[in-house]
């Protein structure tokens, strides 16, 4: 076996996380400050830390830092370059999400304090906590990129999810949010239990928790006549558990209720951050049992049962998501189902495998993060009777009074449907090309049919704001008091239009980051065999 990676090599790649953790500490203290101006600066400080983390990332992934002389990952990672792209994307979308969350909590309390009706009480404010949890969850995703064993992976996934339960609960002072949080928490706990159980079985089947070693063991098993059935069962259970994070089919049913219950900024957060973590986890997990087959002897792609399971999850997720969305009258529920459908599209890339497939998935995650954030930011940036807008009727005739928001919503919806030349089209196109290249024609055809179905409900989001006449309900929609969600919406919409011009650079940025170092597993396993003899 290769000697374990040194601590310093592992820590080196955690610098962005460490920076953000500094942010967590600073922010949670600042949120309790006595002076209003300090408390108000919290979101700004969050953005500063996110920018700082982004600034650090490009310097970390120099070739010599990532690989040793033999071309192996210094930190012992399965996909050593994953973080280079994903961490940047997470931080960038994180900035948009942080802008949406300005003044999400504590608005009433601060108003009361400002007018002198109440005294400032550190017990009652939750802004600092909210943004601390916000950053912790982002740290969780970034840690998933660095996971080199199952325990790390589990902890990182949970670090992504645990803060979100609290964020849902404190996102708005209503019973709905609490209900959503409780639902989300219990189902999340269930799913964590599931994939932990799956991890245990994987450990039992391979005798190791280190992902790279696991891959070598499984490659040998497969070469010797097929994977251990415990490994297969463990992998399937893990996949089902993780599909909770990406709202894929057997674990998708919570999405509509939770997305509806939480405030729009948190919903946007849920639709991007845990999903990214889940997709990365699936990429890491399935890479241990298959794909390696292209480089090591004996296996072609994924083992049959896992392929079938992923295929079915993918098809059901796309189809149920899109059909479900057709039945919705609430914009948030509609976007929840659309989030389910997009997980389906992402899974096509996973099934297509490393190289094109994983690159496309990573690019798609960026596209989805931006366009989805744009749509939710519109909902967050407007309000009716003091509540953020929710139903599709609220959107009718938005153009008359809030033209910018109407245009943003239309752009986001067109991009979500995958309409050229917007960002979503390039995401979908690269995923579909990857699927076709892997020979998954049927899957791509089903996805195309699904895109056609989805055009129907996304057209509502285009048509209602821009074309419909305002109705009595939407007449009363006003801008929310904070400008930042609308700024985030406009920024995201601009990105949807402008980023396609940089598609080449973005795609080449994701190029190869999902690919395990090619020749290594074979050499490692040969050496291992030699050692055991």
């Amino acid at each position: 076996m290769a000697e374990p990676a040194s601590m310093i090599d592992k820590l080196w790649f955690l610098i962005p996380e460490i920076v953000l953790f500094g942010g967590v500490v600073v922010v949670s203290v600042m949120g309790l400050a006595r002076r209003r101006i300090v408390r108000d600066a919290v979101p700004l400080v969050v953005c500063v830390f996110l920018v700082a983390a982004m600034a650090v990332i490009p310097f970390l992934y120099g070739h010599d830092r990532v690989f040793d002389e033999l071309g192996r990952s210094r930190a012992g990672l399965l996909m050593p370059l994953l973080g280079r792209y994903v961490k940047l994307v997470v931080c960038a979308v994180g900035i948009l999400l942080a802008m949406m969350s300005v003044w999400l909590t504590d608005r009433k309390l601060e108003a009361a304090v400002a007018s002198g009706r109440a005294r400032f009480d550190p017990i009652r404010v939750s802004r600092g906590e909210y943004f601390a949890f916000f950053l912790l969850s982002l740290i969780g995703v970034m840690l998933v990129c660095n996971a080199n064993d199952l325990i790390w992976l589990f902890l990182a996934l949970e670090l992504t999810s645990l803060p979100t339960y609290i964020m849902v609960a404190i996102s708005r002072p209503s019973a709905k949010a609490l209900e959503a949080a409780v639902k989300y928490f219990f189902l999340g706990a269930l799913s964590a239990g599931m994939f932990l159980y799956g991890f245990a079985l994987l450990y039992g089947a391979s005798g190791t928790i280190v992902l790279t070693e696991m891959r070598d063991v499984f490659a040998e098993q497969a070469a010797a006549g097929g994977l251990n059935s415990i490994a297969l069962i463990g992998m399937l259970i893990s996949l089902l558990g993780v599909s909770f994070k990406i709202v894929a089919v057997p674990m998708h049913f919570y999405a509509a209720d939770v997305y509806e219950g939480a405030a729009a900024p948190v919903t946007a957060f849920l639709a991007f951050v845990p999903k990214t973590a889940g997709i990365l986890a699936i990429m890491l997990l399935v890479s241990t049992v298959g794909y390696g087959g292209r480089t090591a002897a004996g296996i072609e792609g994924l083992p049959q049962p896992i392929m079938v399971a992923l295929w079915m999850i993918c098809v059901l997720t796309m189809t149920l998501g899109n059909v479900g969305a057709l039945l919705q009258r609430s914009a948030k529920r509609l976007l929840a189902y659309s989030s389910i459908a997009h997980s389906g599209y992402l899974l096509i890339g996973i099934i297509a495998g490393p190289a094109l497939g994983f690159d496309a998935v990573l690019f798609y995650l960026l596209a989805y993060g931006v366009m989805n954030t744009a749509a939710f930011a519109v909902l967050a940036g407007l309000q009716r009777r003091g509540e953020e807008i929710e139903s599709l009727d609220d959107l009718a005739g938005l153009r008359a009074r809030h033209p910018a928001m109407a245009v943003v919503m239309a752009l986001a919806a067109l991009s979500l449907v995958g309409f050229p030349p917007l960002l979503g089209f390039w995401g979908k196109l690269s995923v579909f090309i990857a699927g076709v290249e892997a020979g998954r024609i049927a899957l791509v055809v089903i996805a195309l049919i699904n895109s056609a179905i989805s055009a129907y409900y996304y057209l509502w989001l285009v048509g209602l704001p821009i074309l419909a006449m305002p109705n009595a309900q939407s007449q009363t929609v006003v801008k929310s008091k904070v400008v930042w969600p609308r700024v985030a919406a406009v920024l995201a919409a601009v990105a949807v239009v402008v980023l396609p011009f940089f598609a080449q650079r973005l795609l080449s940025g994701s190029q190869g980051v999902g690919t395990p170092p090619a020749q290594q597993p074979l050499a490692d396993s040969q050496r291992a065999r030699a050692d055991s003899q």
Partner: protein
Amino acid sequence: MVWLWLGSLLLVPLVGVAAVCVFPARRAKWIALFASTATFAHSIIVAVAFEHWHDGGFGFGAAIPTLQLPKFGIQFEMGVDSVSLLLTLLTTLLMPLCIWGSFSAIKDRVKEYYGWMLAIEAAMIGVFIARDLIFFYVCFEFTLVPMYFLIAVWGSDNRARACTKFFLFTFTGSLIALAGLLYVAWQYQSAYEQWSFAIGELTAFSATHLSGSEQAWVLLALLAGFAVKVPLFPLHTWLPLAHTEAPTAGSVVLAGVLLKLGTYGLYRFVLPMVPEAVIAYAPAIGVISIIGILYAALICWVQDDIKRLVAYSSVSHLGFCVLGLFSLNPLGLQGSVIYMLNHGLSTGALFFLVGMIYERYHTRDMSKLSGLSARMPVWAFFMVFFVLSSVGLPGLNGFIGEFLCLLGAFTASADNATHPGLLGPWYAAVAALGMIFAAMYLLIMVGKVVFGPLVEPVVKAKEHGERLPADLTWREIGVLTPLAVLCLAIGMQPHPLTHAAQGSIDAVLATYPERVRHHLALSGQLAAGSAVDEPEDLGGSGVGGGGDGGRVDG
């Protein structure tokens, strides 16, 4: 900087969009008119500088810099041959007229309107000049959005349903076409280990490397996309609705250019890309287009709504166009290309004329209008002129295209020495009924509306915003005159057009005679196997309807 030759055709309208957005609303229409006229002027310069009018080659080939994805072999490559340049000219000619023609009709949301008009112009030109599949697809799809908004915002009463149906039909169709094109690209990738989306390379590859059944599937996928746009018979139901509800200029764009995207797609992709499947399915597609010709013509006959009548007549007319394409000989293809141009001119003009009536009387109902020649002689002159052009009166443009399409179908029989085909006299004979029907329904309409005793609907004063004079204004005459002059000119002197199209058509048809002969020989052998006596006769009768049906199934 070669790319600017064609790139400016996209850039000028797009700059126009930006200018319309920036400047105040009252300037919008003049900016739009200026931008579209400038585009037209530039396209004329391109046409003059174009060197391949006679040899069928592509000119001005260049890629838009920086817009590319080398990993997938995608780059926004442009280039025109004579046919795509002709269609580009049609587009750039119609757009200023559409914009000029909308000056009095569009009163609200003016900036958006002219912005969308220029955006759709850029997208349509993009379709014709694209030499990269993804570039083509992006523009092809993007035409939907401006059209969706043009119908949805400025359309008439039933517009919500019309625009949704239009969007969903065409979007679904083109997704399926995308699947087919991706499949071809994938096969190319598996053969050469690299991605390419260059139309030329994929076409050459697909024609030679794909098996017959693969080609059949690709053909079906492509047809799903292009036949919806054309539209061919069972997929045409979105069109009358969209046409009727669209604003006048929207209808003109739709009939004049958007439908041509479908036939252009058939010409540029289907014919060269999947020849084996085209040969196998040509009789079936011929039958479908004939059904479309006759069916739509019969529907026209019973229409009360003039605009709907013209819309259905488009379905009928484009049936000829498709029939010409699938006769697989130079005559038919020439006819088809010329038909695309003619249809854009005369049907576009008819929509203008109907729109002018609607602006004055707020109705399109034939039973409420009669004898308008007494009130509007100038309008009546143009109406009769363009109806005759559309009917196919010899001496006007419509005749040339229709005649060549029918002649193409007629001579597309197995015993044709140079270009054997799979249609034949029967196809032409039945399709020709469509010409008779066209004469009937259009002339009946003219008889009712233009001539006869004067009947005018009473227009309530408040419905009238700005009162238009009874007869056409100079602006309206100015919109119609260029179209009329072109109709007459093409009708008198079609040779430049047929010569120009010839080179490109020869390139498309290059391998067809050989393939068709091979196909006929194979099916002749099969037939000879079943009936031993007279193989030659059987080969001959294979041209007729019954024999073709059997061959399609096989």
